[in-house]
């Protein structure tokens, strides 16, 4: 067939061209690229946020601090970093459910949740969740009763939000690390509840 190699996508080809030129010009540090990628693939992810939520569920005073100064409370657990410099935690209650979006791009609290999933960055989510949030959440399997206020938070400036989901029933006996396992990424964005044990 005249081909020695598999087809390559154009974005892939273009990215290689950029990397190759920047290396050649002495502008790009290849090791920095490698390590940044592995930091977000291996270290910085939603397990961080789950620890924060589990602590808040377990410790009322920590929860108070989290709701008053999320950045500081999160730092108590050794969690901080880029795109988490100014955090606000939003508490779900029987009266209020919170959901987070960034309509203008895809701002997201990297230190606690890692890099955002594809759906969070999709035009469909960004465009629709502000105007038809109950419909979007229902499509995702989360029916929010009309009696409950559904607050949509558009992170259009420098605050990054995480949702503090409600603690599931029947978890009184669980230790903090067991509680953390119930806290999904999606529950901290507000498109799901925490899992029940």
């Amino acid at each position: 067939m005249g081909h020695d190699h598999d087809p390559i996508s154009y974005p892939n080809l273009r990215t290689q061209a950029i990397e190759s030129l920047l290396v050649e010009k002495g502008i790009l540090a290849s090791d920095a690229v490698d390590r940044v990628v592995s930091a977000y693939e291996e270290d910085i992810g939603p397990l961080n946020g789950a620890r924060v939520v589990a602590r808040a569920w377990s410790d009322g005073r920590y929860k108070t601090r989290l709701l008053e100064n999320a950045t500081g409370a999160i730092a108590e657990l050794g969690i901080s970093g880029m795109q988490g410099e100014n955090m606000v935690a939003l508490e779900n209650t029987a009266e209020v459910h919170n959901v987070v979006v960034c309509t203008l791009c895809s701002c997201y609290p990297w230190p606690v949740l890692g890099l955002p999933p594809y759906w969070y960055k999709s035009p469909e989510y960004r465009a629709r969740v502000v105007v038809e949030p109950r419909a979007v959440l229902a499509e995702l399997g989360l029916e929010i009763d009309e009696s409950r206020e559904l607050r949509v938070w558009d992170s259009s400036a420098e605050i990054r939000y995480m949702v503090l989901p409600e603690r599931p029933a029947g978890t009184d006996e669980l230790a903090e690390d067991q509680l953390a396992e119930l806290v999904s990424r999606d529950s901290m964005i507000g498109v799901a509840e925490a899992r029940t044990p």
Partner: protein
Amino acid sequence: MARAHDIGGLKGLGPVEIERDEPVFHSEWEQRVFGITMATLGKGLYNVEQFRSGIEEIPIVPYMESSYYERWIVTLETNLIRAGVVSEDEIDARTVELSRHPGTDVGRREEAEFCEMLLSVIQAGVSPERDVEAPRRFESGDRVIAAGTTAAGHTRLPRYVRGKQGVVARLDKAFVYPETNVEGAGENPEWCYCVRFEADEVWGDGAEAGAPVYVDVWESYLEPA
């Protein structure tokens, strides 16, 4: 003129589809685009607002139809070209060259010191918080109106609240102002606010009941209602 990214409030698009066990990156090139962007941002070749602006300049139809990291390639190129470190002709020529010699290594260079610095910045963060001398213009509970002007370029005020009334729900710190920072025209920090807008005010008839939107804004985006 509104830009491509300002899409909040469009209805009728397809469903939101959550991918199970989604990987952080879907391919090696996505990894590289992310890392190259962080490394060149870290070198100060452009700033975050300029990064965002380069995405917003994509015409809206291809913006909507392209993938997230495809849009990153566009702004990466735009900003590297504007920074003067590479030309589009060079990227074009290298693309053709690599296409004709598949498997060519992109090369490699190390910068241990920069690498450590970048990782510590990622770990510590870099807040756009700044001190300002001017007093706040608004307090919690104030009724405000989102400035109705249509920005000529990069702005962080979503179109869907322009001209709408809301209530200040939270006072935030003062942050670097995007409209000037994107032009390299200074940081001009301003107080920020979180404003609650009721759904029927924003969306009119047919709004979902009890679904307010909270939007974070710089002070100059607001006028007293």
